[in-house]
């Protein structure tokens, strides 16, 4: 029988307020295998941990139960404490009497009774715990960054600067991402391209960085330190080694009617194209859907004009398989579709645009060469209305429940830029709240109002109605004056909610990384591990984790890089010892377990088994501990119960069930 010590934490008053900790101690002490039980205000504190060490020394404990907060919070803390005290760390179990008990039950009797039962379940489990010893696995010293926007570029540069190889996979023909589409950045109003392109160039030139553009991650297997990734390099139809980037092909291309993705569909591009002038790599791709050669077999003008002979219509997709130790996800965002927002007339009027489209309109390289004009008739607008929170902070299914975070600031930026360049244009902003928490942010917003005379109205726009004269009638409520107002506008700009890029969903599945209801990747801990995925070896950079502006994105990208570097700096990782294990005497060798193993961790060998005197060659399952991640799928698939999971064994779970139901 184990000699178990039970340590009940008050967590200040977090637990003690609704759980009678003394009673829990008293009841736990009565359990047959418990030889020590005590409570303490903060078990996780140094003094609390010292109490554990002391009890181990004095009472010769072999197992420890800590009744405290969630094991997701402090299991590691107490395991380390046990190890320091000379007990195998896996002889510790946590009874979660805070999150699962004291915080949700107001009645002290109820809370105490439940805490006692949870403690008993943990005691019952520890009774059956056995010391476990982690194994080791190697680390491939190369990182993969998925997404080539500012987040991905920054993470890649930081990792590469630390001396590790990095590959960037970007699905579009160029790195640069959303930031490349922006005109100016808040709150400094410096030119986005001016600060981004040097980073792009630096990444491209870095000897430790390889960039796969027009490429997508197709398959991911393996685990922290040892991922194997298949990257699909889509056929560019251009031999990148020959292309000089002269651009003649794009000029001569006969198919020029394709909508430019880079310009958000506001302008056109040729079928052979680079998305923008500063694209990296400066190698075009042929859009096979638009290309006359691919559609009809005729044309081929680009091949004719290409002096380098770089055009290759036969090029095929290529699969590159590479090993990585760490993966940084930087898949970024897109704006939501506005199909369901008929009231804003986005689909009806060309003069209703999104803010991101306005960036292109304002940009010198954009569809209007930087002139502010109505896209419907090219006329100079007299009045522009900005609508905030389109799809953000939305309670219905059309939009997103969260705040997109960047809109208040870029709207102020847009308003200010317009007023600065075209003082004759009247600017009105409808807002729910103006949120400006950031360095120099509120100052920036106030300048828009005070210095530039932007008219901010607290209220929601109910309808934008295109008028026969081409103007737009904006109906809104003014909440401060408590009245309905109607305004005539020439342009309406919608601060459209942002959402994670749709590619993140299948990617999360491949990564086995968890994702929240809004498709943002979940962090391992919202406060303490904000740049790590719960899946080991996966790091989160930029908006894929949640809405962010550029400085935050860059900061997080750096943080993710540091976490990745920390991983790559290790030669070996200790593996989770809670892995599956086959009992050779019970194994049928039927392969059912291998069929459900997501990691290919189970193989079979024929070996001589001595089953209580019967010696015979048997086909038995063997688990590779480095590959096994301990999900337990095999344990249930196994009909004979030969497969069991260490740390969550059948008998342990049954003991918990019994303790709860007794």
């Amino acid at each position: 029988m184990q000699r178990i010590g039970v340590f009940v934490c008050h967590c200040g008053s977090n637990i003690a307020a609704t759980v009678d900790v003394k009673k829990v101690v008293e009841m736990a002490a009565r359990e047959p295998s418990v030889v020590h039980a005590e409570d303490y205000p903060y078990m996780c504190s140094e003094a609390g941990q010292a109490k554990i060490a002391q009890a181990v020394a004095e009472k010769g404990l072999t197992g420890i139960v800590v009744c405290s907060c969630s094991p997701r919070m402090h299991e590691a803390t107490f395991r380390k404490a046990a190890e320091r005290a000379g007990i195998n760390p896996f002889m510790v179990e946590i009874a979660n009497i805070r999150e699962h008990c004291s915080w949700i039950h107001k009645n002290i009797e109820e809370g105490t009774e439940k805490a006692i039962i949870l403690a008993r379940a943990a005691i019952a489990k520890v009774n059956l715990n056995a010391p476990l010893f982690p194994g080791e696995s190697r680390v491939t010293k190369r990182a993969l960054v998925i997404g080539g926007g500012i987040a991905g570029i920054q993470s890649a540069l930081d990792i590469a600067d630390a001396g590790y190889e990095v590959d960037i996979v970007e699905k579009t023909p160029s790195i640069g991402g959303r930031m490349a589409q922006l005109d100016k950045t808040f709150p400094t109003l410096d030119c986005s391209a001016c600060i981004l392109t040097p980073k792009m160039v630096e990444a491209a030139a870095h000897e430790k960085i390889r960039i796969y553009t027009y490429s997508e991650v197709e398959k991911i297997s393996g685990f922290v330190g040892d991922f194997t990734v298949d990257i699909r390099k889509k056929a560019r139809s251009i031999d990148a080694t020959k292309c000089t980037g002269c651009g003649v092909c794009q000029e001569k291309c006969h198919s020029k009617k394709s909508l430019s993705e880079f310009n958000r569909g506001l302008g056109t591009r040729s079928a052979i194209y680079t998305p923008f002038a500063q694209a990296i790599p400066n190698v075009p791709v042929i859009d096979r859907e638009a290309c006359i050669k691919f559609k009809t077999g005729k044309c081929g003008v680009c091949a004719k004009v290409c002096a380098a002979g770089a055009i290759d219509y036969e090029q095929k997709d290529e699969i590159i398989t590479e090993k990585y130790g760490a993966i940084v996800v930087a898949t970024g965002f897109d704006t939501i579709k506005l199909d369901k927002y008929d009231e804003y007339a986005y689909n009806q009027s060309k003069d209703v645009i999104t803010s991101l489209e306005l960036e292109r309109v304002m940009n010198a390289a954009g569809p209007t060469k930087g002139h502010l004009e109505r896209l419907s008739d090219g006329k100079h607008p007299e009045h522009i209305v900005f609508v905030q929170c389109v799809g953000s902070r939305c309670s219905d299914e059309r939009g997103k429940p969260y705040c997109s975070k960047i809109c208040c600031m870029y709207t102020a930026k847009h308003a200010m830029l317009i007023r600065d360049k075209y003082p004759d244009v009247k600017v009105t902003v409808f807002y729910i709240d103006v949120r400006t928490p950031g360095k120099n942010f509120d100052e920036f917003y106030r300048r828009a109002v005070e210095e530039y005379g932007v008219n901010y109205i607290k209220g929601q726009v109910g309808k934008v109605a295109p008028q026969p004269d081409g103007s737009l009638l904006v109906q809104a409520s003014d909440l401060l004056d408590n009245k309905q107002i109607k305004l005539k506008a020439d342009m309406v700009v919608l601060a459209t909610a942002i959402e994670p890029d749709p590619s993140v969903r299948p990617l999360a599945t491949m990564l086995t990384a968890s994702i929240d209801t809004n498709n943002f990747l979940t962090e391992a801990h919202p406060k303490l591990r904000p740049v790590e995925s719960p899946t080991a070896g996966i790091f989160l950079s930029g908006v894929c984790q949640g809405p962010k502006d550029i400085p935050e994105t860059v900061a997080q990208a750096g943080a993710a890089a540091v976490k990745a570097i920390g991983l790559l700096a290790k030669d070996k990782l200790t593996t989770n010892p809670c892995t599956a294990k086959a009992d050779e005497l019970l194994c049928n060798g039927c392969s059912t377990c291998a069929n459900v193993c997501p990691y290919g961790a189970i193989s079979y060998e024929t070996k001589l088994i001595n089953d209580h005197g019967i010696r015979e060659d048997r086909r038995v399952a063997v688990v590779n501990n480095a590959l096994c991640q301990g999900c337990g799928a095999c344990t249930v698939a196994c009909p004979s119960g030969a497969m069991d999971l260490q740390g969550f064994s059948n008998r342990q779970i049954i003991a918990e069930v019994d303790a709860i139901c007794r």
Partner: protein
Amino acid sequence: MAMMKITREAMPALYARIAAEQSLILPVKTAGQTNFAAWEEGADVDLYTLKTVKSAKDAFFPQSENLYTCKTEDKKITVTPEKLTDEHFVLFGIKACDLRGIEVLDKVFLSEPIDTFYAARRAHGTVVALACAAPSESCFCHAFGIDPTAPAGADVVIWPVGDSFMWQAQTEKGEALTVLAGDLLTAAAAEDETALENARTFTKNIMTKLPYADLSLEGWGAGKTDEKFNSPVWDTLYKSCLACGTCTFVCPTCQCYDIKDYTTGNGVQRFRCWDSCMYSDFTMMAHGNNRTSQMQRFRQRFMHKLVYFPTNNDGMFSCVGCGRCVDKCPASLNIVKVIRAFEKAEKGETK
């Protein structure tokens, strides 16, 4: 003692009358199968089926029964032994073969050290035997000297004759039951006794025509261990055995049990349950099993019935020829095939 008579129509009244006083265990049909069970209002009593699936031994030696309960409270353990039965009951409708089976169990459980659970049930049970009228092809009780038309060892014997049952108390307990039955019984007339004799003669005559009528136990019995144990015949006989416990559990004489603990959450309940020597964990010990092959387990069962038991019990076989194993073995193995296989092999040798 006096021969009495009860009509078939009066039987339900008899059951109700007995059941009002003490529990009554008799063949009841449930979900298409007839087994001994406690009578209750509306029970489908089935005296027609020749052989219940399980024998009647449950009445005295149930398939499982609690022995004692350990209850833990804090760090203390209290042990409460199961109470011995102190309630009288009637076991009704047992056949001659099963009755011999009880005699075999008595040898085991009533000799020192006496099994108190069994003894208490024996002391409190009144046994009403039902004589056989129409034996089936799998019957071979005669091979063990049993007369199915005159069950021995019961407190009351009843015989089906026409629309009635003849009733005769054999013991004081039986007399008491006769008193309890009271006006439901009438005195048998001379022609009833004649009819009974005719019926018995008819049945005995059938016994001689059964396929196993010529079954001989020559060569088996006390002291035959050496010549049977090492016979090569076992090697081929056991091959189709599935190692299930059917033969054991339907057998009226198999008496092996296992003792197991059941965790209740607040302690354990120690119970015993029938075990089968056919099971791979039978008499399993820490070092493993003393019979590692199915051949050994198979051999054990028949050696026990036909050699070891008679050796230790004045020649009494622990098979009663009820033929349940013949009817029920999923692999069509049975004790008759064993006996015949040896007969054939031994004859072959002498030729």
